[in-house]
């Protein structure tokens, strides 16, 4: 028995819509098998993974806190991936956004003013964009593979942050803990509904970025340029679009959003710099981008789902003692199933048994 693919004349609109849901379904089944293999009741595990975090108000807040950076980064990456630029260093751009955005509250920690926060956010975006500009520059100027260079820069950014918080930016009153000063109130991202939980402006930024990017991709020439150059650089050149400018645009755009996510996380959820500011948001956002089928609106929904796996992982660890790594495994499964299901959009998949293949061959001859 083997699998045979037959190209569809046009891509299937039905499967375009369905494929993420099929992938989710398959992931849940795979998850249930995994939980059973770990000796847990699969229904209890799935409940604490996917339902429990949604039953309480405070954890809904947590969901939005986790979803915001994922959505911000993934929306930026979708533009990058659509233009066929493989920026996989968003994790590094996230960190550099957090670092550059923190310059103001760390060096001017007594400055209380309404301009502090906007300044931090803008600097965060610039930090992320400039850091993403390095692979773009290397790609356009020296033809260097952007996948490898952007990824290498993640390690560099992590080490740089580590040096800052253990060295020059360490809190002088912090008993030698590797942390910066805590930010003062005017440098902290305001909470939306402080009465019920900690969700902050980050999710609003994510929503705005989603809508603006959706509008750009759908209704602006720039969006068209992204798609054309992504599908065929040659066709794009005939239309007068510049690949070089597009590389810079895609990287700076996604870098800026990753940077914004970084400084929002540092200023909102954490409130200071520390060696570890991201539970691999930059990499998980790649899954979010694909689960959302590189469409900003889809990404918003996908961001919430992936945020749920983070929360579910914590919940399942506490309530039924599943190892916290399970969430990562889940996320990995999800991306695999998403990619596999995408095949259905462009191809008809048929199982061909040996006998059937032989009779078909005879019929043809």
């Amino acid at each position, binding site marked *: 028995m083997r*699998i045979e*693919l037959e*190209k569809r004349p046009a891509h299937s609109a039905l499967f375009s819509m369905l494929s993420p849901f099929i992938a989710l379904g398959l992931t849940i089944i795979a998850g249930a098998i995994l939980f059973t293999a770990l000796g847990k009741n699969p229904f209890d595990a799935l409940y604490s993974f996917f339902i429990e975090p949604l039953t309480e108000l405070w954890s809904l807040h947590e969901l939005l806190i986790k979803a915001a950076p994922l959505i911000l980064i993934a929306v930026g990456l979708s533009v990058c991936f659509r233009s066929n630029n*493989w920026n*996989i260093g968003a994790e590094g751009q996230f960190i550099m956004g957090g670092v550059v955005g923190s310059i103001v509250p760390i060096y001017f920690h007594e400055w209380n003013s309404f301009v502090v926060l906007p300044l931090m956010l803008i600097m965060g975006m610039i930090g992320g964009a400039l850091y993403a500009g390095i692979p773009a520059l*290397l790609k356009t*100027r*020296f*033809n*260097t*593979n952007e*996948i*490898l*260079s952007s*990824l*290498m*820069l993640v*390690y*560099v950014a992590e*080490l*740089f942050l*580590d*040096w800052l918080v*253990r*060295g020059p930016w360490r809190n002088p009153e912090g008993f030698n803990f590797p942390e910066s000063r805590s930010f003062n109130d005017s440098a902290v991202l305001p909470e939306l509904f402080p009465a019920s939980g900690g969700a902050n402006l980050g999710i609003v930024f994510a929503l705005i970025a989603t809508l603006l990017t959706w509008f750009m991709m759908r209704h602006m020439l720039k969006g068209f340029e992204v798609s054309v150059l992504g599908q065929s650089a040659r066709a794009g050149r005939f239309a007068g679009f510049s690949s070089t400018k597009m590389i810079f645009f895609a990287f700076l755009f996604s870098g800026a959003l990753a940077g914004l996510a970084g400084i929002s996380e540092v200023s909102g959820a954490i409130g200071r710099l520390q060696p570890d500011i991201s539970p691999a948001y930059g*990499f*998980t956002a*790649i*899954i979010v981008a*694909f689960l959302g089928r590189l469409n900003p609106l889809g990404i918003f929904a996908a961001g919430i789902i992936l945020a749920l796996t983070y929360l579910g992982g914590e919940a399942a660890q506490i309530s039924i003692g599943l*190892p916290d*790594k*399970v*969430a*990562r*495994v*889940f*996320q*990995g*499964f999800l*991306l*695999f199933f998403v*990619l*596999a299901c*995408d*095949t259905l959009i462009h*191809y008809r*998949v048929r199982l061909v048994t040996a006998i059937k293949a032989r009779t078909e061959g005879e019929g043809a001859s």
Partner: protein
Amino acid sequence: MTLAEAILLTITTAATPLLLAAIGELVVERSGVLNLGVEGMIVIGAVVAFAAAQLTGSAYLGALFGMAAGCLFSLLFAFLTLTLVANQVATGLALTILGLGLSGMIGESFVGQRGVQLDEIAIPFLSSIPLIGNLLFNQDLIFYVSIFSVFGVSWFLFKTRLGLQLRAIGDSHGSAHALGISVIKTRYLAVMFGGACAGLAGAQLSLVYTPQWVENMSAGRGWIALALVVFASWRPLRVLAGAYLFGAVTIGQLHAQALGFGIPSQFLSALPYLATIIVLVIISRNRRLTLMNTPASLGQSFVPDR
């Protein structure tokens, strides 16, 4: 043992996993497939090798299991990209993400345990040659395999019919298919070879380099191996040179950290990654050279039109 000898010995230990992973990926890329999941396969190899060695008490069985695990894990990538023609870049990333997660889960109960170390095998007579004897002929099995793999792969690619077919597939899968060469089958085998090499590289990390299990212990070596393949312009002997160069950088920065020099350790730790970028820039800035050496079908999906 002299100090210089000790340093050279650590360089070979640091270079071996890079060499193995890169030589595997070289074969994969020569067949026209870009597998970015090397990091994931290494880390799976590392954890399975460690676990198997702990459970059976034999480091050799550990290495064997690590290699098999890398190979099996790569099948996941092969099925998606070759059978279901999924995007190779995205699938490779998926393999890395899943590998890091899965290895963390498998390895959870092994954290902090003392591992079994793969012992050295002294080759009679040769190992007593002054200077190089101890260095080249008194090493663990994985080291010998890594060196052998370079020459083996070189011979296979350039001196055998199958190797020629594999290169033909990498350069033009359409023409190779028209000539009756089985593109998908050859690519499956190439990907599995790459997986086995990466798995063995992982086993080296958890059985020789630092005989213990630490989460994410591959620390970017899979990505450096990918860069090495580009650096070597897809030639096995140049991979050997590149891997040892990077091994030297890694060990050099470790010694510099020990000596201090007043440079923050984080900057020194960043050196191998920065060196990778610099090397990539130097190699790829010559567009003609890259174009000439890159397998022409690299990263493209192939659907046979029967």
